């Protein structure tokens, strides 16, 4: 690489736009469009008896009201089950509008289109839906015991059941290994529901061009290419007549990878039918009850270990709350099950999960996607072992670490992409050493004693994780240099604020040897790039970053070839610096990339001075050769794809010092330290930003956020007044250190970083609160009121 842009903390180029209110989010578009609103079920489990719209018809400005009966067959059919799995024997998805039963509060029943959203809501308020409510199924343990069924044809409410078992080296199963171990422990852990909760909710805006018979959809999505395919299929349109654009997206965190949402089908359908632009912007209440949640699991753990704390056998049984539907398959519990071993070499491991239906909002991946639950389980187990043996918590971890010379390390499990779970690189002992130094682990005792002398109560905790990042199947990149010397990069995956415009531009600028300012990046626009998967699973930098690098290398090679002709030099002697191809070591002999772009595209017509240089009488091309040589294409552009054989595994370790108030039981995080390894860093500032955001969400999950359902399946805190996301005042300053073990699997040696920050936080805070209080913490989140209760129970 010729410039040092790769790896530099370049300020995010999107920030001035996004931070000064110049972003273009979904609701900023389509000012004149009709707007949709939905009547949603107020019951968690009910039969729809009758829908009476007569009063609503009077609302001035009303355009249309649709119930399930109004939908054509393909539109009203159940939504796709996006990721089938052999173990998901009873996968179920919702219809865009409920047919005759509703299975959670918030399920859409009637769609209203009106001149604006106010009028649409007025009409919604006048629609009478008669329900026959039934008792709801809430909570996984209740669901497995209950005679009530979420889906009549799913006995026991279990949609999927999967066991994975890795025997010990000696061939013992986990249960045998545990029975034979010198020490055993068994306990139950519990994690409550939370949700992605992006500040911008979902939204769709569709324009039907009746003359062109084409559809343009804007969606606040994490995957515009797949929305395009799904909607085209549903609406019976040729793929070439549908384009989907993700405008600026105000956060996704997983929830927006689910598609097509009911609204993503219905809004374009209504736009076609009505011949009018239609828009739907989700409001916060809708987001709480009709998008998706995550996290809720109950885990039963049995572990056997030796005197040094080495795990000889681990047996985990998980009840995973899947809510009412499984549109995203069983990705979340699979990730929990397979990422649970973290950085450890376990003697033998058995994991079993049941994915359970309840009458609550469906569960799909939220940043971390099952890993926070996994880390909570594994790290709580490590802390229990340490407590049992009277060992330092870091010593138990050290005793179990996979060692640096053991990579690639095969965990013997099958990962979420159906491929073997093989760690590519890492250095866990070094990570822990760095973490202990960063947080001052070994001197914490003095700090605690000093605080205790002032009547203050401190505790320290830690947590480790390994994260499979950059899952396939592929991403692509397209890079074009135009005759003005500008570099246009596009990739199909979307951006939700991660800084792709900056990071991808850095990669392109570094690969091509051009100034950063000349590079522009477009993401999530199917007009520019049609093949993509999406932005999730910490994959954008790994997947599109490498694809763009590979595409740049093609362009570079072509540029050198053309420039070599023009300069009568050997391509091997050329370099690109500052946007100019030049003969290395011969100053002055150079040709700008702009000119190379002109030369790359022989023209018949001239429309400016630049293009005049490329017309047929301009140069002296050989009359014996075709203007575009065999095997060549016109233009200075390249396209390439990156498709990894398997995921690359990032890792990290966090530690926190917390203070618990002896009187009020308030919990304050005094220090938070992160050691993070995502291989080579494209932009360390962006990586740190991702870590900060992740830790902030983790603090939310550990101390504030929960979805409180009552026994009737009513969500009691469906607003920001009562669903407590941390403010900046609740998020500690985050101290970070980076370790770099480059991935051997991809050209840039990078690993994903998007989800990392959130993964171990609940485990870390639980560890620290337990340390401060001397009271076992086995469910998260924890509030001051709950700590108060625990203290009382402990006497």
């Amino acid at each position, binding site marked *: 690489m010729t410039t040092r842009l790769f790896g530099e903390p370049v300020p995010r180029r999107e920030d001035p736009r996004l931070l000064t209110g110049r972003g273009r989010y979904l609701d900023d578009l389509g000012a004149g469009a009709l707007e949709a609103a939905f009547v949603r079920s107020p019951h968690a489990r009910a039969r729809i008896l009758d829908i009476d719209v007569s009063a609503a018809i009077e609302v001035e400005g009303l355009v249309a009201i649709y119930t399930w009966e109004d939908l054509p067959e393909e539109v009203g059919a159940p939504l796709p089950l996006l990721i089938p799995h052999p173990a998901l024997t009873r996968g179920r998805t919702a219809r865009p509008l409920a047919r005759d039963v509703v299975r959670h509060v918030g399920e859409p029943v009637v769609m209203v289109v009106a001149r604006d*959203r*106010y009028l649409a*809501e*007025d009409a919604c*308020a006048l629609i009478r839906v008669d329900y026959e409510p039934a008792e709801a199924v809430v909570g996984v343990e209740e669901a497995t015991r209950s005679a009530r069924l979420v889906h009549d044809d799913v006995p026991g409410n279990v949609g999927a059941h999967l066991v994975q078992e890795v025997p010990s080296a000696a061939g013992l199963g986990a249960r045998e290994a545990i029975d034979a171990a010198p020490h055993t422990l068994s306990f139950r852990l519990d994690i409550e529901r939370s949700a992605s909760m992006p500040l911008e909710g979902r939204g769709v805006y569709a324009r039907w061009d009746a003359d062109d018979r084409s559809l343009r959809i804007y969606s606040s999505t994490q995957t515009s290419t797949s929305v395009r395919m799904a909607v085209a299929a549903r609406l019976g349109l040729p793929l070439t007549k549908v384009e989907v654009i993700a405008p600026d997206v105000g956060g996704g965190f997983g929830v927006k990878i689910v598609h097509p949402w009911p609204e993503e089908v219905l809004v374009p359908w209504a736009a076609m039918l009505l011949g009018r632009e239609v828009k739907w912007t989700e*409001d*916060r*209440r809708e987001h709480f009850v009709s998008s998706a949640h995550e996290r809720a699991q109950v885990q039963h753990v049995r572990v056997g270990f030796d005197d040094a704390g080495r795990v000889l056998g681990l047996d985990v049984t998980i009840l995973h709350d899947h809510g009412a539907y499984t549109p995203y398959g069983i990705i979340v519990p699979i990730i929990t099950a397979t990422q649970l071993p973290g950085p450890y070499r376990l003697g033998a491991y058995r994991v079993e999960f049941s994915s359970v239906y309840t009458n609550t909002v469906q569960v799909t991946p939220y940043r971390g996607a099952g890993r926070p639950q996994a880390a909570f389980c594994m790290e709580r187990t490590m802390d229990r072992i340490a407590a049992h043996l009277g060992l330092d918590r870091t010593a138990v971890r050290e005793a179990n670490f996979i060692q640096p010379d053991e990579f690639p390390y095969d965990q013997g499990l099958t990962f979420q992409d159906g491929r073997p779970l093989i760690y590519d690189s890492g250095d866990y002992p070094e990570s822990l050493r760095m973490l202990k130094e960063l947080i001052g682990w070994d001197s914490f005792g003095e700090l605690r004693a000093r605080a205790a002398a002032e*009547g203050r109560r401190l505790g320290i905790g830690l947590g480790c994780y390994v994260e499979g990042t950059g899952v396939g199947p592929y991403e692509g990149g397209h890079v074009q240099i135009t005759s003005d010397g500008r570099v246009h990069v596009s990739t199909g995956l979307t951006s939700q604020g991660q800084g792709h415009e900056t990071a991808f531009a850095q990669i392109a600028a570094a690969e091509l040897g051009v100034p950063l300012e000349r590079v522009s990046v477009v993401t999530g626009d199917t007009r520019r790039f049609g093949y993509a998967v999406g932005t999730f699973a910490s994959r954008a930098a790994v997947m599109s970053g490498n694809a763009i690098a590979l595409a740049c290398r093609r362009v570079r090679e072509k540029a050198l070839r053309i420039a070599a002709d023009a300069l009568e030099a050997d391509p091997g002697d050329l370099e690109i610096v500052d946007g100019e191809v030049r003969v290395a070591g011969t100053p002055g002999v150079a040709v700008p990339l702009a000119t190379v772009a002109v030369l790359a595209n022989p023209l018949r017509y001239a429309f400016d001075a630049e293009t005049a240089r490329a017309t047929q009488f301009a140069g002296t091309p050989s009359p014996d050769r075709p203007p575009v040589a065999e095997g060549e294409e016109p233009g200075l552009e390249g396209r390439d794809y990156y498709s990894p054989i398997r995921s690359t595994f990032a890792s990290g370790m966090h530690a926190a010092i917390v203070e618990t108030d*002896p*009187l*009020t*039981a*308030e919990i304050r995080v005094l220090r938070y330290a992160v050691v993070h390894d995502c291989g080579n860093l494209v932009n360390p500032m962006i990586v740190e930003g991702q870590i900060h955001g992740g830790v902030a969400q983790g603090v939310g999950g550990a101390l*504030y956020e929960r979805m*409180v359902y009552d026994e009737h399946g009513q969500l*009691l*805190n469906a*607003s920001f*007044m*009562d669903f*407590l996301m*941390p*403010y900046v*005042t*609740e998020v500690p300053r985050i101290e970070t250190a980076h370790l770099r073990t480059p991935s051997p699997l991809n050209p840039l040696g990078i690993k994903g970083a998007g989800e990392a920050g959130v993964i171990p936080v609940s485990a870390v805070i639980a560890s620290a609160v337990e340390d401060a209080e001397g009271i076992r913490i086995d469910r998260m989140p924890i*509030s*001051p*009121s709950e700590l*108060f*209760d625990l203290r009382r129970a402990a006497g």
Partner: protein
Amino acid sequence: MKPPPFEYHAPRSVAEAMEVLAAAGPEGKVLAGGQSLIPLLNMRLVAPGHLVDVNRLTELDTVEAEPGGVRVGALARHARVERSAGAAAAQPLLRQALRLVAHPVIRNRGTVVGSLVHADPAAELPAVLALLGGSVRLARPGAVRDVPAAGFFTGPLESAAEPGELAVSAFFPALGPRCGTAFHEVARRHGDYALAGVAALVSLDDGLRVTAARAVCVSAGPVPVVVDVTGHVAGTSPAVVSGAAVSGAAGTGTSGAGAFADGWAAAARAVAGRVEPEDDIHASAAYRRHLTCVLAERALREAAASAADDVGTRR
């Protein structure tokens, strides 16, 4: 989350506002800072036929020191009152309370009078008005009345302001000599409505002996609960008040020797005994009661310390 239809009025004078409100009767609702009303409208929990926006009534944007207290006009925002040196000098509890009301951006819009009329039992300002024994001035065409705090808060989100009445100002009595105040609360997040909160007002005589002590709690029942605890601490020894028992380990209830410390603890228990908190998704009633006890002791001790400082300054 869009409001149902309403007719919007933007009167330019108090007289016009009163006319419009009187005409609207029970269908009318005043829009002040909108920090409580707009969410209620958007969630369609209220559906007034007429919305009377008072934000152009600049004549009500006032914070005035009057003999004996501070009069706050209906358009004075939380932020303005919080920053007013005159108001702080006359009654420091105003600033102590306003710091705890939401966040700066909300304080930039929300009004003190709006908060009183809104009468949220979790809100700080109704508690302050109740503790100080202030009043709210209500007006309709041809009639003005001052309603004392004790009669103003009639239930959760219910006040004595009647349909057609405009609250034009509120009066907060000044802090007397040898008096001190404090406000302590615990919220889930910075700026949230408190899980529990206690404001205290303590008066001393020249000999630093307690002559009166009262506390008020938020989030503790349908309306602010003022508890007179003078009986527990009256006449107790002065020296301890400004000493270590006040700052430092204040509130632990274990330090601070002698009957005096026990007096504050007993007072705090008396306060906690008077509240009727409920279980909700954020905290149990038992925890809230416990917090009220802890916070009452902190607030009372700090108020006493501040009163002692005042005595010290006067000497």
